[in-house]
């Protein structure tokens, strides 16, 4: 029976009422009395030396408050990178400075050169046009392999080359890896590209900063997934401000997808300028600016090799990847191609020998960082594509080949540094086969062929490491931050509860799902519990929302804090009931003495905590507890996806006819929200597979710089999905047994789509091994006719 409240209930998303009725409060809705507006003058050249900037005319323009250039930020810190990766030789990565405004050189189209603060945005733009900038253009560094060559033009003149790091994971002994491949009965090799993406959240980035001369305090309102992280980075590394004088607020945020994790120059600029101008300062990104200043995602070029023995057991896997970091290191960019990618190369399979090689490259492009899935989609795509190619080469069923190589014993130590605590990959595949009606595929293919279309079926598995992360482990791996989270459960006198959480909800439904947990633990109505998030002045120091971590990490802190509250409330109840604390039971919001009919209601206990007239002397008044939670391990959501496509052989047009997801997320708090998260993730994965392509020309100009050329998925590009999450192996090390569901769809779906299209083409008698994403009609048609 589906539950109608508490853990496991599909409670409707309470936040949607305000979002859908226009009552949300987004950063751009915030206007501070007397605010001025910023316009950034951005480079339209990909790579060049700034020889002169003359702002004198601009400074005299009407309404101009102040004009800033890189010179104003000499002596101010640059944008920091939060993760130091150590290369294969033990040396730290090359870490070039990333100034708030360009100093000396511009390094990508969109690099901010100057900023005008003026009374209105139009006046700021007028003045920006009056700034004279002379740039000596340099060759743009774009191709990653060419950028790695000796003598290549340097993106950063002070670095020894364009390679941020040359990194490796897994088997170090090349001879051993070579031997595995030499002894293989079959080797499948695949070259592939994981296409560069732009996240394009519906709400562009915004920053509003104000400064009080009276108190020397700053407030920054910003579109962030993690306000405490922004405050720490900006205060400690960029502007040198005391954290207690800075409040960072991330109100309603209209989609993040990773690209709002990072600390951006515009946030630091507005905070700095608010004091320098002694006026509140506001910046709202235009969509055009977003394309050239929001961190991009993906952009890997990989060769992957899979070795199999005569029985088709996987015996070895070797990858060589070039990962594009763009012109500067964004906040977590260095971790994505390494610890969030290499560690996932085992996938769901017991491959004994794995070697991952990654060269991370600086190029004259927008910085690349985490985007929904962050490294894990890149890993999954390579692995699931090479397995599919191997199955085709060997003439074996791709599902059987996967099943044969599944990990079945847990815990399982992979050759690439992870320990999977639990899973049931065969069980999840069983669910997929049933939910996707795979046995009916042949009939559906025949029907499509009768209509002149090719039909293909693509299946793949995925695993991801979520709930990032044990702080001690990520610290060893180079993280410059801890990755715990925190929650404060504040019970009010009348029994309602405010829960202040470090996680940030920007589409995930925390305001609904988190109260379900607390209400369920106490046995009260969900409406009595409210989540407070997104304001450093209100919440405990939390690390925010990304990596499908909110419920697994912050939710665990919330459970711990709630347990502390319940423990204390039991002491009070025991006093009121004149019973031993050990005999007090809490059920349905009633404290009772075991084995008796004596009870006291939740509300009476909470009121007593704040009106402690009749109260145990040894217990402090009040009912409020905080817990910090640092996970013991990652969580490992896993699943199996099936996609069916039709391909129009005349045009190469692909249409997705059926998409089925079987996921194991462990325990589930709100099935409806989980469905929605999977739907959204699949939508983005299909977008990557068929539509989205962030492309530069040979001069470093962004070709897909607007929605006229960057194809976002729309409703009619997507099918209705079948989502099954009845395969549930609870996480073994967090109190709720949850794993996280936010990224799965985006990780698991691209290979399913590509595998399906290739299956369709091959069914039509055309041997096509691979087509790079996005599989536009043009690319599919070209592959069919080459």
């Amino acid at each position: 029976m589906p539950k109608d409240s508490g853990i496991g209930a599909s409670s409707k998303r309470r936040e949607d009422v305000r979002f859908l009725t226009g009552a949300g409060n987004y950063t751009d809705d915030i206007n501070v009395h007397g605010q001025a507006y910023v316009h950034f003058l951005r480079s339209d050249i990909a790579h060049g030396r700034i020889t002169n900037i003359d702002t004198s005319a601009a400074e005299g323009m009407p309404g101009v408050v102040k004009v800033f250039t890189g010179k104003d930020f000499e002596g101010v810190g640059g944008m920091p990178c939060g993760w130091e990766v150590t290369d294969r030789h033990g040396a730290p990565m090359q870490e070039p400075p990333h100034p708030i405004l360009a100093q000396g050189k511009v390094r990508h189209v969109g690099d901010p050169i100057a900023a005008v603060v003026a009374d209105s945005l139009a006046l700021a733009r007028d003045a920006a046009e009056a700034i004279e900038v002379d740039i000596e253009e340099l060759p743009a560094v774009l191709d990653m392999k060419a950028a790695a060559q000796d003598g290549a033009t340097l993106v950063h003149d002070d670095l020894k080359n364009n390679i941020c790091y040359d990194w490796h994971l897994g088997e170090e002994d090349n001879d051993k890896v070579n031997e595995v491949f030499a002894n293989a009965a079959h080797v499948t090799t695949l070259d592939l590209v994981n296409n560069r993406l732009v996240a394009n959240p519906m709400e562009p980035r915004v920053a509003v900063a104000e400064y009080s001369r009276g108190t020397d305090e700053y407030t920054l309102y910003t579109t962030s997934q993690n306000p405490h992280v922004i405050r720490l980075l900006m205060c400690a590394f960029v502007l040198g401000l005391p954290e207690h004088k800075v409040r960072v607020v991330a109100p309603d945020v209209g989609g993040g997808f990773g690209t709002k994790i990072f600390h951006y120059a515009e946030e630091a600029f507005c905070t700095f300028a608010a004091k320098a101008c002694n006026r509140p300062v506001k910046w709202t990104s235009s969509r055009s600016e977003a394309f050239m200043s929001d961190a991009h995602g993906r952009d890997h070029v990989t060769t992957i090799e899979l070795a199999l023995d005569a029985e088709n057991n996987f015996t070895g896997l070797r990858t060589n990847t070039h990962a594009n970091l763009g012109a500067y290191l964004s906040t977590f960019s260095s971790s994505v191609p390494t610890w969030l990618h290499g560690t996932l190369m085992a996938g769901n399979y017991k491959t004994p020998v794995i070697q991952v090689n990654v060269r991370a490259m600086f190029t004259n492009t927008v910085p690349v960082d985490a985007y929904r899935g962050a490294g894990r989609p890149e890993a999954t795509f390579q692995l699931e594509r090479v397995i599919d190619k191997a199955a085709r080469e060997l003439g074996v069923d791709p599902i059987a080949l996967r099943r044969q190589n599944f990990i079945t014993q847990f815990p399982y130590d992979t050759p690439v540094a992870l320990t999977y605590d639990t899973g049931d990959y065969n069980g999840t595949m069983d669910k997929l086969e049933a939910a996707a009606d795979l046995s009916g595929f042949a009939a559906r293919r025949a029907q499509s062929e009768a209509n002149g279309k090719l039909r293909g079926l693509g299946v793949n598995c995925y695993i991801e490491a979520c709930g990032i992360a044990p702080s001690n482990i990520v610290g060893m791996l180079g993280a410059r931050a801890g990755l715990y989270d925190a929650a404060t459960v504040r019970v009010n006198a009348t029994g309602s509860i405010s829960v202040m959480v470090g996680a940030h909800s920007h589409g995930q439904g925390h305001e609904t799902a988190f109260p379900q947990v607390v209400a369920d633990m106490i046995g009260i109505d969900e409406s009595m519990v409210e989540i407070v998030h997104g304001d450093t002045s209100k919440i405990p120091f939390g690390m925010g929302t990304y990596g499908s971590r909110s419920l697994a990490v912050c939710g665990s802190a919330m459970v711990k804090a709630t347990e502390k509250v319940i423990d204390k409330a039991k002491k009070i109840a025991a006093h009121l009931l004149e019973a031993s604390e050990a005999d007090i039971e809490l059920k349905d919001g009633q404290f009772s003495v075991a084995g008796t009919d004596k009870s006291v209601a939740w509300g009476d206990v909470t009121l007593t905590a704040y009106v402690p007239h009749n109260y145990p002397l040894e217990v402090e008044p009040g009912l409020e507890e905080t817990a910090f939670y640092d996970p013991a391990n990652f969580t490992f959501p896993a699943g199996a996806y099936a996609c069916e496509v039709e391909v129009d052989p005349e045009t190469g047009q692909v249409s997705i006819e059926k998409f089925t997801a079987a996921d194991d997320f462990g325990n589930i708090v709100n099935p409806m929200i989980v469905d929605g998260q999977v739907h959204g993730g699949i939508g983005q994965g299909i977008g990557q597979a068929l539509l989205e392509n962030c492309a530069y020309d040979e001069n470093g100009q962004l070709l897909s710089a607007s929605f006229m050329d960057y194809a976002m998925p729309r409703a009619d590009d997507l099918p209705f999905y079948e989502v099954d999450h009845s395969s549930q192996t609870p996480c073994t090390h967090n109190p709720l047994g949850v794993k996280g569901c936010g990224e799965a769809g985006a990780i698991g779906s691209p290979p399913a789509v590509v595998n399906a299209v290739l299956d369709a083409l091959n069914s039509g008698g055309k041997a096509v091994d691979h087509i790079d994403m996005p599989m536009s009609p043009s690319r599919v048609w070209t592959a069919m006719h080459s």
Partner: protein
Amino acid sequence: MYNFDFEKPSTIADAVAALAGEDAQALGGGQTLIPTLKQRLAAPSTLVSVSGIAEMKGVCVEDDGSVAIGGATTHADVAADAASSYPALAALAGQIGDPAVRNRGTIGGSVANNDPAACYPAGVLGSGATIVTNTRQIAADDFFQGMFTTALEEGEIITSVRFPVPQAASYQKFLQPASRFALVGVYLARFADGVRVAATGASEDGVFRWSEAEEALNKEFRTDALLGLHINPMNMIGDLHGSKEYRAHLVSVMTKRAVEACS
């Protein structure tokens, strides 16, 4: 956007007078011009909106059976009001952009702009329509003169477009995945005296007639007549969304589908 003056005359004569000013520019539905202004890529001194001119709006059937559409008529109105008099053209209008675009954008604005991927130029050229301005009448074959270039003089306003109604017609549009303009769109119209085939989206010279296909279909109106006919890819558009060869191929496929739809 830069500052500009705005005028909204209610007669064609007043609009023509307003457009005589230096750097004045006509504004139809603004679906191209307004984004251009927002990006500060144009700086007209005066915008003269034609949306208040009643005599430039609406769809009507003339005595000779042709369908006349006022230059300021929105795509949504054409889709609805030409549905019975010229269904293929109404269907074309109904496929432009999205509802917001269709309720602002106008036929006159689209035709005057002559975007190489716009739908209307294919419909106008494929129908052999006549562009009526405040000063003259221009045959479609003379009107479109290459990408974003037309026969219009400075200050000249498209007051209406007059379409002869064919026996059968079809617009086959293959979407550019991002913009959903036509990656290739083919408008085929079959008249008693011959077939016209016009393609948009494909050529660097903008909308064009595929005369070889017209000749072949005039001899025999069936898809087999097109076998062996190919567009030379040389002058086709090649970009992120499709190579020259792909666009050339799509012209053939869309033409074939238009023939099927008209058969």
